């Protein structure tokens, strides 16, 4: 193998700083006197530099995790039990919201009768007694828990 062919073979390693000391010394001595290999080195280094400077894509923090969460849930709805170890973390996080809704509804049904078991909503308002949030919700939803004292 002549000197130029040997340099070309080692050039990538040299450009990427992965060549050993002996190979580095050989390449540097050769390109100092060989125009063709020097040009090759210069141009391929330039290509490397262009790639290093290439604009990097970025997604907002946690964006892919959120998308993954949706995808896992979507797949789970069509293919029960695909995730390892049963329902996955991502799936659990998305069913969290409906669970909160169910819990709030249950709390409402338990609390409202206790506070309104003697009066109708109309009588309660006419009596001028302060109204709790749960009672207001009941009023808005048209609930009539216990109409007569």
């Amino acid at each position, binding site marked *: 193998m002549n000197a130029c062919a040997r340099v070309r073979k080692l050039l990538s390693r040299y450009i990427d700083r992965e060549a050993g000391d002996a190979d580095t010394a050989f390449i540097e001595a050769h390109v100092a006197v060989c125009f063709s290999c020097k040009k090759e080195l210069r141009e391929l280094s330039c290509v490397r530099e262009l790639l290093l*400077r290439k604009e990097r894509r970025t997604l907002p923090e946690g964006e892919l995790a959120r998308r993954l969460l949706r995808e896992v849930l979507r797949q789970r709805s069509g293919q029960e039990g695909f995730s390892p170890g049963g329902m996955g973390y991502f799936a659990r996080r998305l069913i969290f919201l409906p669970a909160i809704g169910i819990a709030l509804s249950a709390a409402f049904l338990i609390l409202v009768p206790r506070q309104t078991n003697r009066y109708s909503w109309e009588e309660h308002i006419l009596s001028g007694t302060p109204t709790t949030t749960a009672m207001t919700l009941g009023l808005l939803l048209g609930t009539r828990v216990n109409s007569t004292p």
Partner: protein
Amino acid sequence: MTEDVFYIEQFLDGDEKAFEALVRKYQNRVLNIVFSLVGKDRESEDIAQEAFLKAYRGLRSFGRRSRFSTWLYRIVMNTAYDFLRKRKNVVTEEEALGQSADVSGGREDVLFVLLVKEKEALIQKALNKVPLAYRAAVVLKDIEGLSYSEISRVLGCRIGTVESRIYRARQMLRKELMKLGGDVI
């Protein structure tokens, strides 16, 4: 214990939230590898998501014979390959060399003007013309900054093969950039 190993062990112990930490850590690295291979924003995001989904499903069978990043990048590469094969956007080495301008006849200064102007779209266009096996090697080196030995583990080939693929990829890129850059400069 590395950060990745810590999260993997947490995940295997039942804390699936640990996987989210791995996604957060690698999301942009994976995205940039995929984008450099595929060249389309929206599709790159979908491929990155698909790769993480495969990793999520397969993490329990990950034998830890290699680093997590190596294992993840292998999944990323295979997912991107599958996508490009389906799209039938595969350029052979012969095609790449045949389409390219002759270096000896090209303008040498074109590369340096591109370097100053940083013509993003042209660089990506040139990358798309490089055959996939070569593109993958040079992307893992210059975009992700892996060492030759890490690339050889991700691509499942010898270090010597990685070395020659990177060399060939840069030669092809040079030709393509001279051709594309010469048209616009």
